[in-house]
C-alpha cells in the first residue's frame, strides 16, 4: 500500500460567517491522480490555498511527507515538494516564456539568487526548451508571455509548477478558459507528462467529463466539506453529489 503523501486532518477555515473549509480530512497517497469537483464556493480553491500555505487554517493540520506543514508560507512548502498552478495563471507578463521557465528551474536548483552566472546557461536552456516542447509551447519560447493565447497561458502556468520537480502537483482548473476543442488536447498533454514522471497529482475541475475521463479518484466538495470520495464513476453517479455540484439529481 503506497504511503500517504499528503494528509489534511480536520482542516477548518472561516471567513466571517462563511465556513470555507469545515473539518476536511483526506489522505492522498503516492502516485494517485485525484480530481476534485464541487460547485462554486464549495471550498476547492480554498483547500488548495490551505494546503500550500497561502491561507492558515483556523484549526487542523496539514502534513506532507510526514512533516507538519501547517502555517508554513508557500515559499517553504514549495521547497518541500508541493507545486501548484492557478485558476488565473500567475505569470511574468514582461518576461519571455523561456525566461519564465528558466527562473523556475533556477529556483529548483537553489540558484535563484545567484547574481553572477547567467540565467541563460547551456544545461538549463536545453532542458527548458525540452520542457516547453512537452507542453507544446516551444514555438513561443522567445516570445513575451503576454503574447500567449489563453490555453498556452494555462499550460505555461502548469509547466512552471512542473519545472520545480515537485513530489505533489496541484492544479486549479487546468482547463478553465480553454476552448472545448482544446480541452482534451491540453489534458492529454498534461497526463502524458504526469504519467511519464509518475507525479502524484490533484486537480480541481469544473468539467465533469474531464474528471471522469482522467481522474482515478474523485473528491466531491460541498460547503467546505468532502461529501464523497471514491472512483470517478461511483462518485459522479451519486445523487447527493450530483445535486450539490450540478444542482440536480
Amino acid at each position, binding site marked *: 500500500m503506497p504511503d500517504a503523501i499528503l494528509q489534511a486532518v480536520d482542516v477548518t477555515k472561516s471567513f466571517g460567517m462563511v465556513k470555507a473549509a469545515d473539518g476536511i480530512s483526506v489522505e492522498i497517497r503516492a502516485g494517485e491522480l485525484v480530481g476534485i469537483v464541487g460547485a462554486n464556493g464549495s471550498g476547492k480553491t480554498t483547500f488548495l*490555498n490551505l494546503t500550500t500555505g497561502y491561507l492558515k487554517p483556523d484549526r487542523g493540520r496539514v502534513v506532507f511527507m510526514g512533516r507538519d506543514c501547517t502555517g508554513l508560507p508557500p515559499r517553504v512548502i514549495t521547497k518541500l515538494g508541493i507545486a501548484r498552478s492557478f*485558476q*488565473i495563471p500567475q505569470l511574468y507578463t514582461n518576461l519571455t516564456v523561456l525566461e519564465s521557465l528558466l527562473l523556475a528551474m533556477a529556483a529548483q536548483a537553489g540558484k535563484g539568487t545567484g547574481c553572477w552566472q547567467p540565467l541563460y546557461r547551456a544545461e538549463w536552456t536545453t532542458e527548458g526548451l525540452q520542457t516547453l516542447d512537452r507542453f507544446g509551447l516551444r514555438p513561443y519560447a522567445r516570445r513575451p508571455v503576454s503574447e500567449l493565447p489563453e490555453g498556452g497561458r494555462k499550460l505555461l502556468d502548469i509547466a512552471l509548477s512542473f519545472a520545480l520537480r515537485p513530489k505533489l502537483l496541484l492544479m486549479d482548473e487546468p482547463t478553465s478558459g480553454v476552448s472545448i476543442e482544446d480541452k482534451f488536447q491540453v489534458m492529454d498533454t498534461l497526463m502524458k507528462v504526469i504519467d511519464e514522471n509518475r507525479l502524484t497529482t490533484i486537480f480541481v475541475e469544473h468539467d465533469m467529463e474531464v474528471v471522469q475521463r482522467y481522474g482515478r479518484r474523485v473528491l466531491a466538495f460541498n460547503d467546505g466539506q468532502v461529501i464523497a470520495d471514491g472512483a470517478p464513476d461511483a462518485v459522479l453517479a451519486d445523487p447527493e453529489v450530483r445535486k450539490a455540484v450540478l444542482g440536480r439529481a
Partner: protein
Amino acid sequence: MRTLTVIVIDGTVFAAVLFLISIGLTLIFGVLRILNIAHGGIYAFGAYLATFLALRLLGIGGSPYLTYLMLLAGPIVVGLIAGPLIERVFLQRVYGRAEAIQLLLTFSIFLILDDLMKLIWGTQPLFVSEPYTLLGEFTITGIRYSWYQVVLIGVSILFGGSLVWAVRGTRYGKIVVAVINDREISQAIGINVNRVYMVSFTLGAFCAALGGALIAPTIAVVPGFAVDATVLAFAVIAIGGMGSLEGAALGALIVGLIRAMAVHLLPEADLVVIYLVMILVLVARPQGLFGQVELRRI
C-alpha cells in the same frame, strides 16, 4: 505642566491642519489607489491663493472681516480648477499603468506646482495676519492663545465630521465606498466610476487647499513648505492606514502631538522624530492602525 498644556494645544492645532490635508490624501488613495505626491503642492497653492486674495481685498479697502471669505474662496477655486484638471488631463492617462509610473506622474506635477507658485508669487514670503489677529486672544494659566486656533480646530472637526457623515450617510457617499471596496463590481452595477474618481480627487484637492488656506494666517507663506506638508501628510495616513478616514484623524493627532513635543522639547530633531515614528509604526503594523491587510485572491 505648563509645557504639557502648550504642547497639547499646539499639537491639536497642528493636528487639525494636518487632518485637513491628510483626509484629502487618504480619500484620493482610497478611491484612486494613487498616492498624490502633488498634494503638498495643492496645499501650498491654496495657502498662496487665499493669502493673495485676502491681501488684494485689503488692498482695495475691503473689510478685514471679508478675508475669511477669501480663506474659503481660495481653496474652492484651487479645488475646482486643480482637481478636474489634474485628474482628467493627467491622472486618467496612467490608470492601469505600473504604480511606479503613477507615482512619478504625481511627482512631476508636484515639481511643476512648486515652481509655478514661485513664478506667480515670487520668492518673498506672503503674509496676511488679519484673519488671525481679528479674533483676538485669550489667556489660560498665563499662556496666550488665539481664538483663531480654536476656530481652526473647530473647522477641522466640523469638516471631518461632515465628510464622515457624507461618506457613511448619503447615497453618493455609499457609492464612493463601493468604488473603494471593489472597483470592478461597482462598474458592473452601473456606477460611473470615472465620475467618482474626478469628484473624489477634486474633493481631496479642496481639502488640501483648505488646510493650506487656514494655516496661512498663522505663518508666512514661503516656497518650500509644500514638501514638508507632503511628507507629513503621508506619515499621517501611513500611520493611520491608507484609505481610512478615521485613520487620518488618529494619525493627524499622533503626528501633531509628536511634532509639538519635538518642537518644544527637542527642536533639532523635529522632522526626524516624525519619520522615526512613521517607520516604527509601519514596521510594527505595515497596514497602519486602521488599515486592512489585503490578500490577493488567487
